[in-house]
């Protein structure tokens, strides 16, 4: 991974406060997230592509909206399981990683990892759509300013390729791209 260190910079930290007690489990967040990220925008929807997932087990009263975080090529050495106020949550039930241990946060057809981008848009939105569509206020958007070291972000393509390389090896990925280019196929 290539990271370039930059000067200290002012940065807006975007936070979504998740109130589990207020969640009614409707999955509107998943619906609208996937619609927003469709190409063209809103042209399709599919919770399986959503960057927020309801980890939901009604009978056990488990209702946890989780946001897609970083992609990781290997799962953790162990798994965590939280018990809060006597209620047991699922294994990795609060984890945001797109990871080999589960199918969450991966494109269903390509397996490429997904990550929440807070509905980056031009012009910028006031708040992410999942928050707007959550009328029960289980998701609350907050911003604050922080001074941080800014790191140059990998382009989306690079993130995708890195994950493919992790999965299949560098050679196989290069071979495939070359072969496809030769055939004139554009995936």
């Amino acid at each position, binding site marked *: 991974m290539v990271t370039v260190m930059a000067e200290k910079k002012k940065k807006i930290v975007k936070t979504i406060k998740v109130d589990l*007690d207020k969640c*009614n*489990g*409707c*999955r*509107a967040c998943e*619906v*609208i997230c996937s*619609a927003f990220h*469709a190409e*063209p*925008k*809103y*042209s*399709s*929807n*599919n*919770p*399986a*592509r959503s960057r927020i997932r309801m980890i939901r*087990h*009604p*009978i*056990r*009263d488990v*209702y946890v909206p989780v946001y897609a975080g970083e992609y990781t090529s290997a799962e953790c050495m162990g798994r965590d399981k939280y018990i809060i106020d006597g209620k047991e949550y699922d294994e990795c039930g609060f984890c945001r990683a797109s990871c080999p241990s589960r199918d969450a946060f991966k494109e*269903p057809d390509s397996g490429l990892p997904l990550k929440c981008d807070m509905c980056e848009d031009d012009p910028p939105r006031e708040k992410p759509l999942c928050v707007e*569509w*959550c*009328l*029960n206020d289980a998701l609350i958007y907050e911003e604050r300013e922080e001074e941080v070291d800014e790191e140059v972000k990998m382009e989306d393509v690079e993130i995708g390729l890195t994950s493919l390389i992790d999965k299949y090896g560098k050679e196989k990925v290069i071979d495939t791209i070359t072969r496809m280019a030769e055939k004139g196929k554009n995936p």
Partner: protein
Amino acid sequence: MRYAETGYNLEIDLARGNVERAETDPKATELHLGGLGTNAKILWERVPPEIDPFSPDIPLMFSSGLLCGTPAPGANRTIITAYSPQTLLMGYSMMGGFWAPELKHAGYDKVIFRGKSPDLVYIWINNDKVEIRDASHLRGKGAVETQELIRQELNQPNAQVAAIGLAGENRVYTASIEQGRSSASRLGLGAVMGDKGIKAIAVRGTKDINIAKPAEFYELCTEVLKYIKYRNEHPVPNVMTILQGLGSPQEMLHTDEKWHTENFMWGNARVRRKDFWNKQIEDRWKEVQESVRTRLISCYNCPMKCGAIISVPGISTYMMKCFSKLTYTMAAFVDDLDFGFKIAQRATEYGVDGFSTPQIMAFAFELKDAGILTDADFEGCPSDSEGKFYWLLDRIVRREGIGDVLADGIHWAAQKIGKGAEEYAHNNIKKHEQLPLKLGMLNPVYFLMYATGEKINITQIEGQFPQSPFATMEERQEFISDWIQVPDEKFKQIVLDWEFRGERSNPYYPTVDMSVDIVDWQEKMHYIDDSLGVCAGLSSFPLKPPYHMHNYPKIISAATGMDLDEAGLTQIYNRNRNLVRAINVRRGLRRIDEKPPQDHWKKRFPELEEQLLDAYYKFKGWNNDGVPTKETLEALDLGYIAEDFEQRGIYDEEPSTKKASA
């Protein structure tokens, strides 16, 4: 590309174990939308009317609505259709929850079963992979329990499962189909599912649903959502609490049950307890409800909270919605709500309709008190009010002894028992148990809705016109001031003029013609909802809903790419309304059957009631026996139905009311 819909149905032949993915005709969508509309078309086409509801040829359909799975809030209903073993008419029962959107994402609009499986099976639909799997290990398991066992067995925590319990397996006529917090309860379709040997249908889908005009559709959905927010913050004033908000009645939220317990009937829909509610009861009921209610929950993509997770210590957790906390409690004359939550848990696992089943039991105990049923029929039955209801519920669901007779519902049980039992079957319409409500003065609008409803359940036809007049002119003005949903300004005037007493009051006001207009509007919204799969709780059912005649055509057009305006949508409604009526006409439904219970109102007006029916039929373009005329059908592209009626001699029949009096 097909928009909003997938364009494919899953056809499953249970006898041969054959599974087929069949492309559907886009023309059918243009004519009928989807859901109820296209289900009705298939039912009309595939089987002749003489068929028995338990014939292997019966197509049992699990359908999504046209908008299900799109971002349209509350578009999540599954419309299940076959013939009802109880009414013998078209049975269409619906459930909310999460099943229909999942089916769409798996790539199908409907699942259509035919034939019967020789062994108990469950169906596993995982995108393109569909399996018919052995369910012998699930025989007798609870409907809620089964959903969980299947998810575990498949290792698919995100699969949505619709299942029957013991009642469906045993073909109890009030058997429901349960799915999460939702159930398709009315008209016994759980029995048809059990008869076909299907214990459950599990589905998981990860495909896209496409939208024709993305930006427009998104804007329209956002407006709907904004209006829901506005309505949640602005309850309708001057009406009782449960009518103020959106959604189905917020029975899981509210604990004040003075109105229901003192105005609805106890036992076999007969006894009113006007002084039931007091401080002690109020405190106890509040305490009970709040202690068992773990969380208020919703269906797919809906901000409302009409359901709840119910955890009663010592018994397994289940989910509840609407009114069932009270139906068992009041039918059994039990003064503690604790009983309601406990017996509903068992009833939900058995998978029975929480409206009909308690009434059947109350009916049976009334017959016992009257000496029509004997002690021998109740051998082993405890004598306490709670114990005897548990005992009888077990007998009915297992079809043991008297339970076997009662499992066919009040109408058929009364016929079988005889000895005057028919007199006690006083609360049915078209052989189906009704809400335990008995009132004073005839309401002409409700008379028509009760009499002519094809769903045979008042909550599935009543809607957004106020149930009673407002007391003052100020209140009326306030009500109509932001009433954007009216399809025509004339409805506002009716509200302004409607009085409690005098010339402009029930039963002669709203006038006959106004009543017909009002009913047509209410029906229209329900028929559209049921074809789109949008929950009535956000549309046809509550006052001032977010979906209405003015935004629906735009929403449907943007989602599907169809070019639809209000007139076009009304035409589709009329087509679907007449198609459903035609199916039932072919099954023998006539004017003579269109009767609310005789004791529903104390004050009845036979002449006016005839005028109301005359006018309603005329408005619909039906003959005086409730049969759509040839001209009406042809104008709706339903000429094939008119031909069928002609061939069967339906137009040449003597009027049903005349035949009955002869």
